[in-house]
C-alpha cells in the first residue's frame, strides 16, 4: 500500500502534474507576458530614431507627406 501511495504522490502528482504546471506557468504563461513587454520595448527602440531632432529630416517627411495627401485628394478621392 505504501508503494501505491508513494507512486501516486511522488510519481504522478509531483512529477507528472505539479512539475509541468509549474514549468508551464513560468515559461508559457509568464513567458507570454514577458514577450508582450519585450515586443513593446523593441518597437519603442525601433521608432525612437524618428525623433532625431534634425530639421531637414522633419522637412522631408513634412513635404513628402503633403505631396502624398495632395495626390490622394486629387486623383483618388
Amino acid at each position: 500500500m505504501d508503494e501505491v501511495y508513494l507512486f501516486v504522490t511522488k510519481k504522478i502528482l509531483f512529477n507528472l502534474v505539479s512539475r509541468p504546471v509549474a514549468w508551464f506557468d513560468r515559461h508559457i504563461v509568464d513567458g507570454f507576458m514577458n514577450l508582450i513587454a519585450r515586443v513593446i520595448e523593441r518597437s519603442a527602440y525601433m521608432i525612437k530614431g524618428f525623433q532625431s531632432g534634425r530639421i531637414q529630416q522633419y522637412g522631408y517627411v513634412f513635404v513628402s507627406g503633403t505631396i502624398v495627401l495632395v495626390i490622394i485628394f486629387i486623383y483618388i478621392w
Partner: protein
Amino acid sequence: MNILSLFVLIPVLTCIGIVFTKNMKQTRLVSAIGMSIQLILAGLLVYLYLAERQAGNMAEMLFTYDALWFPTLNIHYTVGVDGISVAMIALTGIVVFAGIFASWKMEFLSREFFISLILLATGVFGFFISLDLFTMFLFYEIAVIPMYLLIGIWGSGPKEYSAMKLTLMLMGGSALLMVGLLGIYFYSAPDGGQLTWNLLEISKINIPIEMQRFLFPFTFIGFGILGALFPFHTWSPDGHASAPTAVSMLHAGVLMKLGGYGAFRVAIFLMPEAAQEQAWIFLILTSISVVYGAFGAIWQKDLKYINAYSSVSHCGLVLFAVLMMNQTAFNGAIIQMISHGLMTALFFALIGMIYGRTHTRMINEMGGLMKVMPFLGVVYVIAGLASLGLPGLSGFVAEMTIFFGAYQHTDTFHRILTIMATTSIVVTAVYILRVVGILLLGPIKNDHFLHLDDAKWYERLSTITLVVAIAAIGIAPLWLSDMINVSLAPIVNKISMAGFEFTSLF
C-alpha cells in the same frame, strides 16, 4: 463628521504625523497609534452597523454621506456601507494593524516606508466605503501606485523587475476597468436624464443588453487581474516574493480582495444579464485558477512562492463563487475573501519573521524549526490548517459555503467545474502539510539555526491578532454570514430580475 470619512482621514493624518517624526522609533509609534485607532474604529463600525440593523434600519446602505466634487461629470464623494463592506473594512483594519507590527524593525527609510504603506491602506479603505464608481476607481489607483515604490525600494531579489511587472499588469487592468466604468457611466441614464456614477442609482436601471455584453468583460477582467484571474495572475508570484513582509501581507490580504469585491459589486451587480451569458467563460478560467494555483504551489521551493500560488488558488475560488451567482455562493465568496485575507497575511508575516532569522526562504535549506522557535512554528501550523480548511478555522466555513452554493446548480457543466474545484482541497493539504513537515519537523539542518530566538512581543502581537480573527470566524461564523446575508438580498433581487432562479440554504 460622517464615521466613514474618518477611515480616510485617520490614515491621512497619520501620514502627516509621520512626516514630523525624527527617527524610526517615533515613526513606528505614530504609525502604530494611527492604525490602532483605525482598528478600534473598524470594531466600532461593526458594532454600530449591527446596532442599526437590530433597531430595524433596513436601508440598503447605512451611514451614507454625499458631496458633489466635480459637477461637470457629476462626480460625487458618496460613501455608505452594507454588511459586505463593513466586513471588508474590519478585515483591512486587522491586516493593516498586524502589518505595522510585522514591520517593527524596518530601519531603512522608515518614514517613507510607513507613509507609503499607510497611503496604500487609505486607498483600500476609501475603495470599500465608496458608492460613486469614479471615486471608487480613484481610491483603487491610490492603492495600486504606492505598491510600485514599496516593492521597488524595500523589496528583495529581482525587485525592480517584479515591481514593474506588478504595476504594469495592474495598470493594464485599470485601463480595462476604466473603459468598463466609463461605459457604465454613459449608459447610466437610458431615458435621457442626468448621467450618474452612483452605484445604487445605476443598479435601479437596466443597462442595455448590447452594451452589457461589451462592457462586462472589460469590467470583470479589469477587476479579475487584481483578483489573480488565470492567465493574468503572473504578477502575483513575482510581486509577492519580492515585496517586503508587510507589503505582501497587505497585498495578498487586502488588495487582491479589491478584485473580488469589485467583480461582484460592480461587474455582476450592475450587468447581471451579460454576467449570466458570459459566466461560463470566466467559470472555466477561475476553475483553472483554483486547481492550477494549487498544483503550481506543490513544486515551489521558496516559501513566498508557495504562498503566492496558494493565493492564486484561493482567490480563484472567490471569483469562482461570485460567478456561481446564487446567494449561498455569494456568501461563501465574501467569507472566503475575509478568511483568505487573514490567513495569507498571517502566512506572509510568519515567512517574513522566519526569513529574518534564517536568512533563507528555501524550504530544502530549513528543517526542525519547531524546536528553536516553537511559537512561530505553532502559529505556522495553525495558518496551514486554516488554509487547508480544517473545521474550527475560517477556511472551512468559507470553502464549505462556496461548494454548497456551487452544487446548487444542477446542470452537468456547473457540477463538473465544482468537482474540479473541490479537488483543490486535497492538493492544498498536500503542499501545506509537506511544507510543515520539511520546515518545522525533523532534524535541524543547520547549526546556525540552534542560536535563533523565538518571536518578540511585537511579532506575537501581530500574529496573535490574526490567529484570533481566524479562529473567531471558524468557531462562530453565523454572525458574519448573517451580516453578509442581509446585504446580499438587494443584490440577489436585482440579479433574479435578470431571469435567475434563486435558491439559498440560509
